Each structure stands twice: as structure tokens, then as C-alpha cells.
């Protein structure tokens, strides 16, 4: 729910009822967050992140009527985005592997912004060395838009499982980072 008291679900209903401004309001609430998450999940490829989020909106528009209100709109749209990112990752696996072989300049496509503070490449590389599920858990848990309960719901796993996975992933990340820093 927003400060003005309108819930995401009512905005979706309004959009399905024909008010396209409601979609704009939903986008105002979530588009940046989704882009950020997609950017993180797609190894900093902003072009792929844009594709993923655009496809997410397209699916919201097309299949919004099938949203059954059993979960929050927020978790639903995050799940769509994550699945889109996974699909794009699958599609671009070949390119990604080639890119990773050739260098990271291709994969890390930072958005052009004066205000942007580039994320350290070491950390991104360390995350890439982790198992995908673990790196996804870390990114999702440290993503500003979601708390742990919501992250667990988005991933479709119990909160306890999420926490244990996060713990294991962070331990692995630390082990990965420490030798690098030692070097």
C-alpha cells in the first residue's frame, strides 16, 4: 500500500478496468526496484535488465486478469521478473560464457548516469563464482525493495530455508572474497 492508501491490487484492478494511469502508478512504485534487481541478477547487463522488466510489464498487462490475489501483487511481479531473468540467462548462456571468457567489460554494462556509483567488480565476480541459487538468494536478500519474508515468498521457499541458504551463501562469499583480498 502506498502513502495515498491505494493498494497495488486495487491499482491493478483499475488498470484492468481500463485506467492506464493506474499502470503508470504501479510502474512508479516498482519499475526502478525491478530494474535494479534484474540488473543484479543479470550480472550487470542493463540491456538485458531492461528487456526483462519490459517483458514483466507486458505479462502484467496480458495476464493481469489471471492474478488470483492469493499472494501480494508485489511478490507476484517480483516472481515474474526473476523468472524473466532466468529465461534471459538461459537464452544468453552462450553469450555470457563467451563474454566471461573474453573479459568482463561486455557483461558489466553499467547504466550511464552521473549519480551512479559502480558496484565493485570483485564482488560481482565473487558472486558469479557462487552457485546460482546462492547468489540469487544474496542479491534478493540485500535488495532494498524486499525484506526476508517477501524474498522467501518470491522464491517460494520457507523463511527458515531462505535464512540457512543465505547464511551458507554468505559464508561461501566470504571464503571467495578473502583470498582475493589477501592477494
Amino acid at each position, binding site marked *: 500500500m502506498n502513502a495515498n492508501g491505494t493498494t497495488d491490487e486495487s491499482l491493478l484492478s483499475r488498470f484492468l478496468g481500463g485506467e*492506464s494511469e493506474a*499502470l*503508470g502508478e*504501479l*510502474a*512508479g512504485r516498482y*519499475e*526502478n*526496484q525491478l*530494474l*535494479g*534487481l534484474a*540488473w*543484479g*541478477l543479470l550480472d*550487470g547487463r542493463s540491456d538485458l535488465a*531492461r528487456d526483462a*522488466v*519490459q*517483458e514483466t*510489464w*507486458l*505479462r*502484467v*498487462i*496480458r*495476464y493481469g486478469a*489471471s492474478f*488470483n490475489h492469493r499472494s501480494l501483487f508485489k511478490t*507476484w511481479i517480483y*516472481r*515474474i521478473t526473476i*523468472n*524473466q531473468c*532466468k529465461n534471459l540467462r538461459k537464452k544468453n548462456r552462450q553469450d555470457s560464457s563467451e563474454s566471461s571468457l573474453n573479459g568482463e567489460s561486455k557483461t558489466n554494462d*553499467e*547504466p*550511464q*548516469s552521473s*549519480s*551512479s*556509483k559502480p*558496484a*565493485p567488480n570483485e*564482488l*560481482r565476480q565473487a*558472486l558469479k563464482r557462487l552457485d546460482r541459487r546462492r547468489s540469487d538468494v*544474496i*542479491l*534478493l536478500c*540485500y*535488495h*532494498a525493495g524486499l525484506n526476508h519474508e517477501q524474498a522467501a515468498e518470491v522464491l517460494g521457499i520457507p523463511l527458515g530455508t531462505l535464512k540457512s541458504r*543465505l*547464511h551458507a551463501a*554468505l*559464508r561461501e*562469499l*566470504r571464503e571467495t*572474497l578473502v583470498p582475493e583480498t589477501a592477494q
Partner: protein
Amino acid sequence: MNNLIDNDTEQQLSELTRWPDESPELYKVALEEHCAAQATPLLKREFHFSSFSGRWAAVLVFGAISIIVVGLLLPSLGRAREQAAASPLSSAPSAEAPYAKVAAALEERVNPSGVLDIYMKPDMYGIDDELSLMDAYTGDQMRAFPARGGGGMGVRGDRMPGQNSMNTPPLAERAVVHTWTIELESDDVRSTFLKSLLLVSTAHGEFVEQSRLSGDVPTARANITMRISLDRLDDVLNKLRGLGEVIAESSDSKDLTNQIVDLNARITNERSVELELLKLLESREDAPLEDILSLRNHISNARMRIERLEAQRKSLGKLVALATVLVIITPADLPDVPEEPEQSSLGDYFKQHVSDAWATGLRVLVNSIAFLIKLLVSGLLVWIALIGLGVSLRHFWLRRVALGLV
């Protein structure tokens, strides 16, 4: 947040999923794309044969499986329903009134000729023994049923029709007219005819209603309609069966109970009218002659109606008391009559076959429509369940599509 990593790393991790730019308003692009896709005619849209065929193949397979399942289920369900309908005895009765239910079931099972079609097991009704079952059908109701020509068993399994007679009236004084037809084949029609006539006993009030013997020796035929007392009916039928080879035998019964009850009611009514008129006549002896004559006239009419009704009742009583037995006697070996070859033209032949083909085609069409209706109606519950399943699957599918899992 966590002691495994320091705050700087946590901050950097958070920065990895923070979009540093302004929102590019991708929802507008998506909306435009969606509107463009909506506006594009269906034929011009991008066509993915693989996904289309896969989806439709799934739908077709689902439909085919549904039809096969329903097709397999329906006949067995139909058979079960027919068996259940054919066996009203199969439902267990309540403990309160087993006798009434037995009586009702017995009445249902009595065929038009008044003979029970099946053997009933006593335990079906929770009655301890067979005797109790028979007691449920008590007193006069258990008088012998008349014999029947066809197979089947009486109430007791050890009694065959024809060997035992058990008169009909169940539960009430029933007045039933019984008619038997027995067709015999005999080497000597004339002799069998005469022997049949001798079976009629005038001492018991029996008589021959009609008899006819026609034809010469090789092709002679005979018909006899005799009225036989119910007490001797089995005996006479058995003797008739011994006079020749039984070709066919049938029986028919007509229940006149309602007519007799109606007649009785009318007679009672007329009698009370007559009684009242007589009382009136006695009390009004000093009335004018004209009134007295009119009253007598009314009394006379009432008496006439009473006698007419009583005569009708008597006639019905006679009809009930004597069974009608129609005996048809035919020679054993009828000379073969050569069939005349049909003289038909090619046009008639063609017309006949076209007519046959047309009739067959129509019959097939009607049968097909009837089958489809039967499939639709009798499998209604199954169809509803399948539609529900289909809708649920569609929702599930759409959710997966929306989430990008498909």
C-alpha cells in the same frame, strides 16, 4: 545484518541491485507493444507453430482421453443403473415395516399373468426364514397363483409354474380375469380336438364358449375357446399339454378389481336411495295420489338400477371365476407350399434398394444423434467435472505463462 561479512560489503551488495538511473518507463513501451499486438490482425501475428501445435496437441489429447474415459464409464454406469432399476429388492428395507415392503415388492414383481418372476431370498428383507416371508403375504392373499406357460419360478424356488397354482389377489380381494392361449401341434387334429372338448367339466360350471374344426385331414385346424374353473385350471392345462406338442403358450390377466369396487359402491348408494324413498312413502301415506305415484316411480327406477348393477357384478364375478383357455390345434407336418417367385422389374429393384439405403442411413443418423445425446446427458456429472478440471488447468497454465515459467 550479518557477522559473516562486514558493513561495507553489505553496502556494496545492496548497491548491486540498486538501479542508479531514472526510470526508463518501460511500462509504456510494453503497453504500446501490447496495443500494437492487439491491433494486428490475427493472421499477421507471429505464428509459432511448435508452441501452437504443442498446446493444441495437449488439448486434443485431453479431449480424446476425456471421451474415452466417459465412453468407458458410461456403459458400465448405465448397466449398473439398469441393474439397480431392475432390482427393487436390492435396497435394504428399514426394520420398522419389512412386511409391507415385502408385499409391495411382491406386487411389483407380479407380472400381468399374476406370476412372480423371480425367486426372492428371505434375507433380502431381514426376515428370519422363508415361512415368515410367506406370512408377510398372508391368508387369502397367498391363494394359489395361476399356472403360467413360460419358464420362471414361483415365490418358492421348488415350485414350478404349472405344478403349483397360487391365486393372485395380493393384499386385497382382487378380481382378475385370466386368459391362457395354448398352441398345440398334433398328428391327428380331429382326435386332439375331441379330447380337448372332453376336458371341460360341466359339473364345475365350465363350458365351451366357441369351437371350430376346419379343413381336411392333412391341413385340418381347430380352435377351441373354453371357460375353465380356476380350481381345475392347472389340471386342464397339464392335460392339454399332453395332447400334443406345445408350440406356444401365453397368458394374460386383466384386473377388474376397480370395476367391482365401483359397482359395489354404486349398488350401496342406490340401495340407500331406495331405502330413503321407501321410508318417505311410508311416512306420506296421506299424500296426494300424484305424489305417491311419482314416488313409486322413483323407487321403481332405483330398483331397476340396483338390479342392473347387480347383474353386472354377477357377470363380472362369473368372468373372474372361470378362466378363458384358447386352444389352437394345428397339424404336425403341414405340406410345404411353394412360394411364388416375386416378379419385379429392374426399376422396382432399384427403388427398393434406394429406399433401403435411405432408411438405413436415417437409422444410423438417428442412432448417432441418440448416442451423442446419451453421452451428453448421462455423463453430465463427468462432463461438469471435466470442465471444472479444464478450467482449473487453464488457470494453472495462465499463471505459469504469466510468471514466465512456460
